[in-house]
């Protein structure tokens, strides 16, 4: 019974993701795979010149520092953000790589579409359950 449910779910995922741009799908699956990361990439998209500490970014994003610390580290590891030392401070900013910036632009633009958001939310929820 449970196996059948999983099969059904996989089928639904497949259909939901089928018409998604492969580049965007990969960006979603490998980089923006949590709601906090979604908030963070959106923040850096809207504030492309921001360089700041994790504490301040948490304040701007309206999240707690504990919530975003790991997510900032993941986004840095995945090449979306850049981490630098500024005196004694560790600061984060958007990575300058044009390919990543282009994907981010596409992702944020696609997020304005309700259909895309539904698919992306579904994927993230599935991802967090696995």
């Amino acid at each position, binding site marked *: 019974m449970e196996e059948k449910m999983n099969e059904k779910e996989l089928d639904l995922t497949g259909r939901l993701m089928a018409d998604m741009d492969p580049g965007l799908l990969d960006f979603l699956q490998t980089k923006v795979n949590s709601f906090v990361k979604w908030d963070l990439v959106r923040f850096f998209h*809207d*504030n492309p*010149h*921001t*360089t*700041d*500490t994790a504490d*301040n970014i948490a304040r*701007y994003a309206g999240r707690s520092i504990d919530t975003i610390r790991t997510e900032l580290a993941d986004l840095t590891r995945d090449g979306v953000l850049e981490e630098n030392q*500024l*005196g004694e*401070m560790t*600061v984060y*900013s958007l990575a300058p790589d044009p390919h990543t910036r282009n994907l981010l632009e596409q992702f944020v633009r696609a997020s304005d579409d309700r259909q895309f958001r539904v698919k992306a939310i579904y994927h993230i929820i599935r991802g967090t359950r696995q």
Partner: protein
Amino acid sequence: MERVKTGIPGLDEMLQGGFLPQTANLIEGAPGTGKTTLGMQFIYHGIVACGEPGLILTFEEFPQQYYNDATNFGWDFRQMEREGKLRIVMTSPEVSKADLEAVGGRIEGLIQETGAKRVLVDSISHFERLSEEPTQLRSIIHSFVNALKREGLTTVLTRESIALLGDSEGTDDALAFLVDTYILLRYVEIESAIRKALLVLKMRGSNHDRGIRQFEITSRGIDVRAPFEGREGIMSGSPRRMVDSFVQAFVRR
């Protein structure tokens, strides 16, 4: 002497043509008096009328807020950013200060990339959380202001004043000594209506109009108008008609 025009009708006349180049100019006022609008108009005028790109360093509002506010005055800040004439940077006082102190920092990079000549810092009040010790705070702000001057920028700094009417109490005046120009924006109550007053309190190295002028925020930005006439005690927030003061001082004795 060369002047950096604000493009604000009336204000440039008060400043004998505008700010002096590469100076720090403080605009202080209560919430809603128009500090940010004045700063945005200074940036906008630089871009469209003087060919001088600009930078906005914001410590509180998101860039979207500036895009929206500017649109209300017919200023397309988003387009200016696309054209590389404007950069709106949301940051924090501690990071922007450290960044400007470092060689080849991000802000320096943005200044070089755009060729920025003007900067709006909105607001300098946020530096107050960096130190509770006045001498240290003064040193921090001094270093920040000097870094902006070093980059060849003419700066408008906004500062929040808590008092809605009259003098603000407890304001640390150390900043007043550091800046080159000190402009006060005040609410004034006249015959049960609130009006706005502007006073150029100080302008280092230049003469300036010492009158207290009325100003309005119109659909095209700030418009500085005629001085308040026949009244005294304007900056107290509750001016009296001069004739009443005269009667009080002489006739009723």
